[in-house]
C-alpha cells in the first residue's frame, strides 16, 4: 500500500464526495470546529477528528439499527481481548490489565469511519475516496490495514513458501465476500458476542460449498469421515504463523511497544479446545497465540495468575485455503503422520498442563492397512496445480495494493 501524501489524507474530492448524500450535512454538525474562523488553527478548535467514535455519534440518528448493534460488536467492544485476558488472570489484577490495555489496545478498535471513510490510524489515517462514504470497505486499505500480520500474510500468501488463499487467487474474493455487513455490524448471529469463535461458525464454509461436502460429494475424504471428525480447515489450510513470548512495555516517553520473541510458520492438528454443538470437530488446526506468562510483567507481577486456564494453543481458522494441501494429499499424509499433530513433545514444558491438556493429542489416527500413503517422490505442490495468476490490476478491488496477489 503506497503511503498517502499528507495532503491526500485530508483533501475532499468533490467529484466523489459531491454526489454523496452525506455532503448535504454541514461539516461542523459532525466534526465540530469553528465554521466562522478565518485561519486553520481557529477553524480546528474543538475539532472532533472521528465523529463516528464519539458516544453521541451523528451516525446514530440515521443508521440507528446498524449503530446500536455495531456498538456491541467485537470491533467496537474488543471483548475478545478481555475474554482472553481475564480468563487467564484473577479479579485482583483486572485493574492493572485495564491500564495495560489503555496503552496497547486503544487504537485497535474499529469505528464506522475506519471501515467506510478513512484509513485506520494504525496506518496513518487518510480519506479513502475524498471523503465519500464508501459502501464496501476496500480490503487493503481497511481490513488488512488492521488485520495486517496474521490474516493478511496468510490470505495474500506473504509467508515465505506458503501459497495465498484459493478464494483470492482463483476467485478474487475480498474479505467482504465472506465477512458480510451483518457480521461486521454485529447483527444477527454475530450480535453480542464475547469472542470471535462464540456461537455458530460465521461465516461457514458450508454456506457456499454445501453441494461439495458430505456423502454425496464423490470425494473419498469427504465421504469417509463423520462430519464431526475434522474441521474443513484441518484438511484445507496450509501452515500459519505461531508466536511465543510476546511482551508489551512502554519507553521512558510512554510510547507503548511490543516485541515477539519468536514466531514461526507451522501446521498442527490438535484436539478441539472449544468443542460444542456448533463446532463439534474432534480435530482442528491449533495456533500458539502470542502470549506468555510474563507478557505483561511491565504492568505488574503475576498478572496472568491463571495462565493455563485457557490453552495457549487455540482453535484456528487460517486464511490460506487450498483444495490440495500437504496433509490431505493421501490418507497416509495424515493418518500415522505424527509430524502434523500437536503431540506433547511439541508443547513447551512450562505449558504442558492446564487447559493445554485438552488440546494435546495422545494417540494419532492410525494408518490402516492398505491406506494410500504419500509417494516417495514429491507430489505436485498446489502451486503447480493451480498456477498462481495475479490477475489484472484493479486498484479499487485491491485498494491500491498492487502486490495483493501475493505472488
Amino acid at each position, binding site marked *: 500500500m503506497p503511503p498517502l501524501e499528507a495532503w491526500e489524507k485530508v483533501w475532499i*474530492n468533490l467529484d466523489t464526495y459531491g454526489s454523496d448524500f452525506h455532503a448535504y450535512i454541514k461539516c461542523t454538525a459532525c466534526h465540530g470546529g469553528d465554521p466562522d474562523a478565518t485561519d486553520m488553527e481557529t477553524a480546528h478548535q474543538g475539532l472532533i477528528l472521528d465523529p463516528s467514535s464519539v458516544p453521541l455519534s451523528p451516525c446514530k440518528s440515521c443508521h440507528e439499527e446498524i449503530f446500536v448493534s455495531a456498538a456491541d460488536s467485537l470491533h467496537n467492544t474488543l471483548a475478545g481481548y478481555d475474554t482472553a485476558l481475564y480468563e487467564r488472570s484473577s479479579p485482583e489484577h483486572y485493574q492493572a490489565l485495564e491500564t495495560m490495555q489503555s496503552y496497547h489496545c486503544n487504537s485497535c478498535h474499529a469505528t464506522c469511519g475506519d471501515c467506510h471513510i478513512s484509513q485506520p490510524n494504525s496506518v496513518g489515517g487518510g480519506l479513502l475516496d475524498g471523503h465519500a462514504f464508501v459502501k464496501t470497505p476496500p480490503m487493503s486499505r481497511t481490513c488488512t490495514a488492521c488485520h495486517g500480520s496474521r490474516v493478511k500474510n496468510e490470505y495474500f500468501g506473504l509467508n515465505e513458501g506458503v501459497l495465498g488463499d484459493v478464494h483470492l487467487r482463483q476467485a478474487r474474493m475480498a474479505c467482504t465476500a465472506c465477512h458480510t455487513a451483518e457480521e461486521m455490524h454485529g447483527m444477527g448471529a454475530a450480535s453480542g458476542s464475547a469472542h470471535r469463535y462464540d456461537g455458530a461458525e460465521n461465516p461457514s464454509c458450508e454456506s457456499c460449498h454445501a453441494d461439495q461436502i458430505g456423502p454425496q460429494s464423490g470425494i473419498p475424504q469427504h465421504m469417509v469421515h463423520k462430519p464431526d471428525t475434522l474441521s474443513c480447515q484441518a484438511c484445507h489450510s496450509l501452515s500459519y504463523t505461531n508466536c511465543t513470548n510476546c511482551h508489551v512495555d512502554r519507553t521512558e516517553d510512554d510510547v507503548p511497544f*511490543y516485541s515477539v520473541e519468536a514466531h514461526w510458520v507451522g501446521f498442527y492438528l490438535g484436539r478441539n479446545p472449544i468443542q460444542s454443538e456448533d463446532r463439534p470437530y474432534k480435530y482442528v488446526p491449533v495456533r500458539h497465540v502470542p502470549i506468555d506468562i510474563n507478557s505483561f510483567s511491565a504492568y505488574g507481577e503475576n498478572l496472568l495468575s491463571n495462565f493455563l486456564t485457557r490453552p495457549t494453543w487455540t482453535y484456528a481458522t487460517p486464511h490460506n485455503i487450498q483444495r490440495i494441501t500437504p496433509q490431505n494429499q493421501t490418507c497416509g499424509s495424515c493418518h500415522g503422520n505424527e509430524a502434523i499433530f500437536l503431540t506433547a513433545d511439541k508443547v513447551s514444558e512450562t505449558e504442558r498442563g492446564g487447559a493445554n491438556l485438552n488440546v494435546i493429542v495422545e494417540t494419532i489416527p492410525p494408518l490402516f492397512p492398505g491406506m494410500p500413503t504419500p509417494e516417495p517422490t514429491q507430489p505436485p505442490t498446489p502451486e503447480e496445480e493451480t498456477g498462481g495468476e495475479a490477475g489484472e490490476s484493479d486498484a479499487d478491488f485491491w485498494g491500491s495494493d498492487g502486490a495483493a496477489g501475493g505472488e
Partner: protein
Amino acid sequence: MQRRFRVWLLIAVGALLLGAAALLYSATSPAAAACNTAPSATSPVRGAHQGAPADLALVQAAGEGCLNCHADQEKVKALAVEEEPAESLSEGPG
C-alpha cells in the same frame, strides 16, 4: 419501518436544504473568508461545480468555510504537514 424512515428522511433533508439555502443567501457569510483567500478561478471547487449537478451548490453550502481549504488541492498541499513518523519500536507479528 421503511415508511417511517422515508418520512423522517424527508424532514431531515428538508431541514438541511433550508439551512443550506439560508447560508447561500447570506452572501457575507464569514465562513467564506476562512483560509483568508477567495476561491480562485482555477480551484478544483469551481471546476467541479461547473461540470457537476446543480445541487453542488448545496454541498458547497454545507461545506461551510471548510471546503475553501479542504477541496482545494493547492491549499491543502500548502497547509498539510506530515506527522512525525510514528516511532516503530514494535517487532514481530502482532
